[in-house]
């Protein structure tokens, strides 16, 4: 702090003309800037604590009451809003010169010299003491060093609180992961790496893909090998399993070119037939060889569920193949689960347990869902039962969509094959286009769901091949939706556009839910669709989990850097 003499002597007057009212006011105003910044700093320290407590409170309450929402992101936004609401008015508040003078008078024990001078400068008629007082005050002002008078220093209490806060943050964010995983980001990093690597594989290694499928599905390998072999030599670029809209248009364009060529040249109908055949083979390639097993498993599950009165309706619908209605029945059951009698609960426990055993071989994930329901019903945990039943309904509905899409795809494939064999000579351009359109429609319909097939073996292979990423565990719907693969050109995020619940165990800390929300920018309308490529390029973030922030930054850099480097490599 500056030491300022507390006395004045007329003998020390520097003389007239040095001190002037405008100079004095200007100097006092200049001192005010530092006061303002200091006020903002002090207010920020307090506001930070209010915001932090608000954030923690909202996060805890939100995690308990509404874990499906991006609680941390919302809490962070609210806390940030409160922080700004407390700090911004202080920043915007202009201090009057009188207030500034009072503050410096009090801090430097200037015996109210500055404030009296400021007041007197505006007084009329002029006080006889005006000149001497201004001289005296000016002399003191010249000795003031605002940096020393008001250093940017937080009170000891605030500093202590900040240190405690940092320790708490460390314990909260880092400590839980120190014993087990090297980094708390590992699970999510693996998950995202799997997505990206899956994309990479489908772009670069179609042969390995086919080989992998053959190795994993020898029964279907023969079916796949034939078209793959015929394609591999002639048109390797068409072997890409990622068949996008542009790919289809390209196929269509090739087919049209074939049509045009037919008009001009004889014998080019063979190329058109080859086009149909190729398209049929493409659709065939997207066929899931295990879909029939899943349909059978669902029917067996339905049979077991009919043994319990509450789940009878759902079971009957499953047996009939009415998957949407079965899912709907399960949701209704979830709503009424609190009204179940003890006997009904016992029946349900047994029925779902047996159903889980039935599905274990053909669809382990579905079996896990069923086992979860059985366990929660037995434990009388109604809320968890409700949630598990809803998830089971979602899983069944999803499988139903896959099965239906597969059936449509098979129909289209048959039509295409029929078109290639029976109408080879007289195929009209309109018929060909109609077939292509239907094939495209079938593809799009199937593309809404996981075209890679729900085969557990395929999923495992994809993830392992991608990054050695997350284990096959989990078995939750979100994980399935989130899984990429060489034959999964598009993914669907169901029910919650732009929000995906990632794999288990990604919770940012002990206090956060196990399923941390992973936000992926999407089109914004339900159901959100985006391709694996989109997912790979999207900035995937976890709302509010602070320790993900550095990772997010790295993610941005990596993506844009990669994009730039790729562009440079491809440049001539």
């Amino acid at each position: 702090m500056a030491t300022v003499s507390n006395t004045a002597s007329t003998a020390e007057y520097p003389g007239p003309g040095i001190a002037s009212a405008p100079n004095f006011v200007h100097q006092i105003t200049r001192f005010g800037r530092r006061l303002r910044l200091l006020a903002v700093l002090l207010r920020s320290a307090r506001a930070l604590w209010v915001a932090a407590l608000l954030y923690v409170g909202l996060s805890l309450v939100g995690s308990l009451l509404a874990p499906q929402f991006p609680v941390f992101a919302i809490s962070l936004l609210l806390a940030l809003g409160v922080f700004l609401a407390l700090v911004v008015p202080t920043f915007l508040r202009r201090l009057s010169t009188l207030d500034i003078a009072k503050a410096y008078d009090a801090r430097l024990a200037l015996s109210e010299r500055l404030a009296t001078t400021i007041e007197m400068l505006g007084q009329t008629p002029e006080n006889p003491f005006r000149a001497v007082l201004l001289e005296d005050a000016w002399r003191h002002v010249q000795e003031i060093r605002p940096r020393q008078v008001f250093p940017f220093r937080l009170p000891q209490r605030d500093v202590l609180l900040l240190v405690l806060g940092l320790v708490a943050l460390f314990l909260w964010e880092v400590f839980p992961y120190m014993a087990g995983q090297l980094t708390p980001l590992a699970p999510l990093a693996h998950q995202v790496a799997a997505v990206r690597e899956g994309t990479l594989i489908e772009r670069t290694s179609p042969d390995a893909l086919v080989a992998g499928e053959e190795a994993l599905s020898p029964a279907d390998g023969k079916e796949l090998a034939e078209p793959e072999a015929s394609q591999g030599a002639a048109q390797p670029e068409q072997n890409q399993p990622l068949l996008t809209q542009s790919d289809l248009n390209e196929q269509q364009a090739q087919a049209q070119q074939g049509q045009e060529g037919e008009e001009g040249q004889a014998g080019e109908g063979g190329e058109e037939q080859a086009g149909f055949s190729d398209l049929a083979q493409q659709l065939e390639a997207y066929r899931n060889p295990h879909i029939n097993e899943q349909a059978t498993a669902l029917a067996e599950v339905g049979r077991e569920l009919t043994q319990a009165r509450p789940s009878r309706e759902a079971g009957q619908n499953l047996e009939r193949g009415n998957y949407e209605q079965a899912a709907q029945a399960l949701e209704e059951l979830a709503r009424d689960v609190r009204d179940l009698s003890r006997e009904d609960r016992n029946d349900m426990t047994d029925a779902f347990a047996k159903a889980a055993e039935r599905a274990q071989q053909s669809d382990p994930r579905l079996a896990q869902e069923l086992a979860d329901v059985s366990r929660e019903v037995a434990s009388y945990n109604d809320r968890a039962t409700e949630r598990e039943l809803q998830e089971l309904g979602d899983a069944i509905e999803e499988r139903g969509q896959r099965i239906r899409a597969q059936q449509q795809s098979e129909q289209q494939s048959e039509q295409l094959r029929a078109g290639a064999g029976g109408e080879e000579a007289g195929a009209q351009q309109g018929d060909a286009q109609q077939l292509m359109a239907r094939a495209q429609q079938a593809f799009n319909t199937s593309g809404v769901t996981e075209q890679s097939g729900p085969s557990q073996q395929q999923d495992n292979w994809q993830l392992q091949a991608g990054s050695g990423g997350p284990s096959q565990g989990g078995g939750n719907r979100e994980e399935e939706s989130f899984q990429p693969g060489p034959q999964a050109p598009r993914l669907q995020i169901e029910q919650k556009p732009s929000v995906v619940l990632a794999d288990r165990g990604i919770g940012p800390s002990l206090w956060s839910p196990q399923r941390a929300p992973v936000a992926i920018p999407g089109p914004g309308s339900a159901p959100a669709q985006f391709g694996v490529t989109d997912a790979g390029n999207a900035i995937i973030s976890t709302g509010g989990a602070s320790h993900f922030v550095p990772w997010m930054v790295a993610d941005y850099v990596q993506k844009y850097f990669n994009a730039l480097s790729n562009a440079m490599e491809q440049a001539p």
Partner: protein
Amino acid sequence: MISRPTEERIEHFHLLSRDIRTELGKVIVGQQAVVDNVLICLLAGGHALLEGVPGLGKTELVKTLGEVLDLRYGRVQFTPDLMPADITGTTVITEDQKDNRFFRFEPGPIFNNLVLADEINRATPKTQSALLEAMHERTVTVGNSLHDLPIPFFVMATQNPIEMEGTYPLPEAQLDRFFFKIIVEYPDAAELEEIVLRTTTDVVPEVRKVATTKDILALQVLVRQVPIASHVLRYAVRLVTATDPDSPEAPQITRNYVRYGASPRGAQTLVLGGKVRALFDERYNVSFDDIRAVAHQTLRHRLILNFEAEAEGITADTVIDELVMTISPDTEE
């Protein structure tokens, strides 16, 4: 004098006050606070009431002050049989050389610039009232004639807190006429040694006159021109308001122990006293410290405490201490 530049007038003030202190110091040992407070009263144009046990130099101080200031000095020893006319003066029948008789007003000792009312509480209330009326009005009415008191007019009264037998304590309303009530404390050992040394030899200290009536009047004008910031003025007013037990700003101690608070004259005295003190401190504005420094002598005789205060031994100074601590200045920190 007014037309002189302010710097010169301030310099004149400092020189005079320093000289007065120096001359008084030749006779009065120690008691610097008492001397300063007496000077504050003089320069602010108020009257002082000095209270202390006998032998502390109260009378000597006033007498020396009269000699130093070159003012007409008068002394009245208050006794129970003292009549008002003994103070104000009276009309007497006089004969001229032609044996013509006529009434002539013979002014009393109050018609001096500096009046020492020694042991004022020993006179009857009637006599006290005569003096106190003159202090306030600065005029004396004798018969049908109104007589102006000289300017400057400065009364210094002394009273003895002990020997209450046969005394007439001053009424509160009349106490309010005194600018300050100054408590004269015992000198410390070193001062006492010096007093004994000075007064037991054949050396009689001589003081010189350093200020005239004109000087005193000029300084009184200068004092009133000292500026005071609005927030300092507010602080003085808040201090006085806080002595009123019916005021919403009154602290608990006021509500508990004060029957009547200080009058508006108390606020005026705080500010005027603060102005003189600021000049003494070679400053050109009144500060919070100036107000605090004169709070006790300004307010102690203006507070009327209740029975509970007397029973619990709470004095006016205790209340003022609490007020000064409780009432915080209005500053932006």
